[in-house]
């Protein structure tokens, strides 16, 4: 709209630049700051009044002097999107990093996505087989779900995410799919690990990669997931693809959010994170799902590391309140040498019931997984007791539960990094484990399923 340049910066603090006496500027509009060396940096208007305009700089304020010129672009941030983005590697602010040509846009989309009208949503219910038993059997993922991995430093969340990305498929067969991968503040080494795997498996051709690494500006992280999800929405709802979005690491995103809050001198919420962090995270996670009458879908697997392994920390906590469950990685399991170290007790998939059962996975799925949960929980409780009173003090019944828990971890949870188990294999394995218990303890399973699937009766066939 206007190309007038202002030289009226009054204050620079953290990622914020304050400019006075401008023409009326719209909230959330883009601003461009020209540095003395001729380079330019982009920012966004956070607060606009007749007297002062506050700009949040995406790439930080390092090197910006008070004499820098500021221009307002008269529009909010848009992202060029196109089918040709598949196979490309972009920076955290969407610039090509792979030496390839600039993206020729088929469309330019607002990066702050509008909310999907709940009336327009379609129920996610299509089972995605990840080949990982603890997910498929116990915490089933469906298309259009947002299911984060709660992890912690030093745990193999990247391996798990990659294994899911490699093996994920729907049983109904081949369909147009894509992966959108957004890295926020992860190390170069971690990024390399992802890229190598994408190349090795040929997934890169079907992927759009956004990389904001640990040494990239922290503030850029604020827009990286928005760019990634805008791309995903285009692929899913305009080009009819089934898109899997992997976002890692949301903890770094939240740190950046906190940094901006502090710079704006906002009243902080819990542990210094902004009071609006729930709403902000929701504006990311809710950009998953299905829409009535559209073929494509967006499934999200955000990864976050729990500071101090603490699941009540605001980042995992607020995430859990928004997402449709969580896959929790536990250090104890790593110590016991178990991969993937997924703790099924604290994990949950809320859309599981939609995606399993007759015609989707198998009729006995719900009952068997409920039974495994109950038995595993009971067995685990007994471990505490055994540590005090010894195995001898246990009744015969309890001893069996204790052994069940050990076997469950050793055989069902534990699997190879390249091992792709079919849902049938997983369910049969669950039955095999349950068969070690007295049949009368299987109170959560209907008689008819026991007769049909219990190994004892199956052998007779």
């Amino acid at each position, binding site marked *: 709209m206007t190309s007038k340049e202002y030289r009226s910066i009054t204050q620079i603090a953290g990622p914020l630049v304050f400019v006075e006496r401008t023409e*009326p500027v719209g909230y959330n509009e883009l601003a461009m700051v020209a540095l003395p060396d001729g380079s330019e940096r982009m920012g966004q208007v956070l607060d606009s009044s007749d007297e002062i305009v506050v700009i949040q700089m995406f790439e930080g304020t390092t090197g910006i002097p008070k004499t820098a010129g500021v221009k307002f672009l008269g*529009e909010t941030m848009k992202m060029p999107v196109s089918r040709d983005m598949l196979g490309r590697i972009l920076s955290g602010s969407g610039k090509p990093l792979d030496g390839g040509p600039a993206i020729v846009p088929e469309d330019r989309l607002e990066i702050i996505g509008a909310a999907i*009208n709940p009336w327009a949503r379609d129920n996610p219910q299509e089972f995605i087989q990840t080949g990982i038993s603890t997910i498929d059997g116990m915490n089933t993922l469906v298309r259009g779900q947002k299911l984060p991995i709660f992890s912690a430093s030093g745990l193999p969340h990247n391996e798990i995410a990659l294994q899911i990305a490699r093996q994920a498929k729907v049983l109904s067969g081949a369909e147009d799919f894509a992966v959108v991968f957004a890295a926020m503040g992860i190390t170069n080494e971690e990024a390399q690990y992802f890229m190598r795997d994408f190349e090795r498996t040929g997934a890169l051709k079907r992927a759009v990669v956004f990389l904001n690494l640990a040494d990239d500006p922290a503030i850029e992280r604020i827009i990286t997931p928005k760019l990634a999800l805008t791309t995903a929405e285009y692929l899913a709802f305009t080009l009819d693809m089934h898109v899997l979005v992997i976002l890692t690491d949301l903890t770094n995103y939240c740190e950046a959010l906190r940094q901006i809050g502090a710079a704006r001198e906002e009243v902080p*919420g819990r542990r210094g994170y902004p009071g609006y962090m729930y709403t902000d995270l929701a504006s990311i996670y809710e950009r998953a*799902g299905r829409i009535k009458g559209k073929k494509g879908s967006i499934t999200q697997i955000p990864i976050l590391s729990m500071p101090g392994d603490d699941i*009540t920390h605001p980042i995992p906590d607020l995430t859990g309140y928004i997402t449709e469950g969580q896959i929790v990685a536990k250090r104890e399991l790593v110590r016991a040498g178990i991969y993937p170290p997924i703790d099924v007790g604290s994990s949950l998939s809320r859309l599981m019931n939609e995606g399993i059962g007759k015609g989707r996975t198998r009729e006995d799925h719900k009952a068997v997984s409920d039974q495994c949960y*109950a038995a595993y929980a009971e067995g685990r409780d007994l471990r505490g007791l055994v540590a005090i009173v010894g195995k001898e*003090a246990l009744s015969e019944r309890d001893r069996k539960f204790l052994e069940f828990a050990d076997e469950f971890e050793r055989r069902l949870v534990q699997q190879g990094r390249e091992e792709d188990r079919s849902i049938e294999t997983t369910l049969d394995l669950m039955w095999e484990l349950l068969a070690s218990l007295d049949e009368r303890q299987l109170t959560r399973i209907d008689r008819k399923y026991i007769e049909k699937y219990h190994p004892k009766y199956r052998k007779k066939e």
Partner: protein
Amino acid sequence: MGKEGVIYRVAGPVVTAVGISPRMYDVILVGKEQLMGEVIKIVGDKTIVQVYEDTSGVRPGEKVVDTGQPLVAELGPGLLSSVYDGIQRPLPVLRDRMGDFIERGVSAPGLDRSLKWPFTPVVKKGDTVAEGQVIGTVPERAITHKVMVPPGIGGKVDMIKEGEFTVDEVVAVIGGKEVRMMQKWPVRRGRPFARKMAPEEPLITGQRVLDTLFPLTKGGTGAIPGGFGTGKTVTQQQLAKWSDAEIVVYIGCGERGNEMTEVLTSFPELTDPKTGKPLMNRTVLIANTSNMPVAAREASVYTGMTIAEYFRDMGLNVSLMADSTSRWAEAMREISSRLEEMPGEEGYPAYLSARLSEFYERAGRVVSLSGETGSISVVGAVSPPGGDLSEPVTQGTLRIVRVFWALDTKLRERRHFPAINWLTSYSLYSGQLDGWYRQNVAEDFPALRNWAIGLLQKEAELQEIVQLVGSDALPDEQKLTLEISRMVREIFLQQNAYHPVDTYSPMSRQYTFLKLINRFATNAAKAVENEVPVETIANMELRNRLAKSKFEENIEEELKAIAETMDKEFEALGGK
């Protein structure tokens, strides 16, 4: 000053305007696109407005218009089975007008202006009527909709019509004023009624742990706090599905889009056990999901409550669910912090607990202006950060509500659903309702319930010992206590919301279950005295059968069969 002014400042959902002098909470149209907002603060010549839509691109200098009206809900035929956003815009209309995503600047009235409804007057020309009095009826889905004289109007009926009308056609003239089927009411103000009465009947929900152990009343208030994934939404949806209210108002306040979709797809397929009609027919849904504008989220609970009050005034029992009141409180906090108000605890505004009590106070059983008895039961989900109940929203809520259903992460991790902790939850109505239960369920029902509560408490004490010495060290009688309380937990308390039979348990069946477990306990105690090992009792086929009966399609016969064979099976155990 005039009705029009200009924008001075825009910061997110909070816009400051100059040049107008509105009243607090009047609706202001902001900017070129006339986005709807509400006055939340007035300082000197500046008016501060919270805007219900995204303000991206809105600039200082753009026009604002003072409508001179507060935010109102439209009330009349057509509410039932509607799906609204937080400011009562119908979501299907929004989708027609702007596609799959919620854009902005579209206004859509709450009630459809084109539909005609058959109006039958119940008063005639020359009668004298007062505000709130019923002047006619309209059949609407699950109910007979009563058209009432809007508050503030009364006098002689100068004219009244019969026939088919839209909601904004004049159907009567009363005291010289035109009356339509639709009336408007400011959402932040409770609708008037004649007097409040104490609740005296339970709200039967078909959920065993609720109805038997911690009952809510018609007109009562309850809270369900719990960490993420513990079952707040499932429990509230169960109440919306099965509670014996005539009207359900379900407010999805700052929660997930997919959950709303689930309600929208499952409710039309489910039938109300009372009327046999689709559940959606008695339901009004308000969906302001977490990524929809935060100011509209703040307003959504009031919109829902006003609709509930309107049906209450017709003499109906309404149950209102708000999921989650914490998101509402956070919306208040967010707006308050943009206003740079002095924060109270954890950044929440100092008026948080006052707002919470005002909201829950709008619940209750009342005699309406027209002399009918109606009620609103309110159940609020609370989402405490980190599951820590000492935080301000939970504490503010617990000071007001009379029923507390405590969800427990430990229980949910072992898939004990509903994960309602039986030791920490309470209902202050419980004792008051004993008479009702005696009369309507069974004379010995309160006694049985107290037996179950006592048993569970005993179990908790024994568990502490078991943690130290193992269960084998306990005497047989105590082992049996553990075994019976396990039965109460697994058979009675656990209830699977997704199982077609188990999802709803009528009061009579709840009683039968308790009675059978109790009889089992008496028999078992005798057997133990006769030196039958507890393990043998625990492994009885009968016990297994009882455990599974709740999933049987022919459950009633199954329970009868169990009752008939029980004594014999115990005799067969022998003993000394």
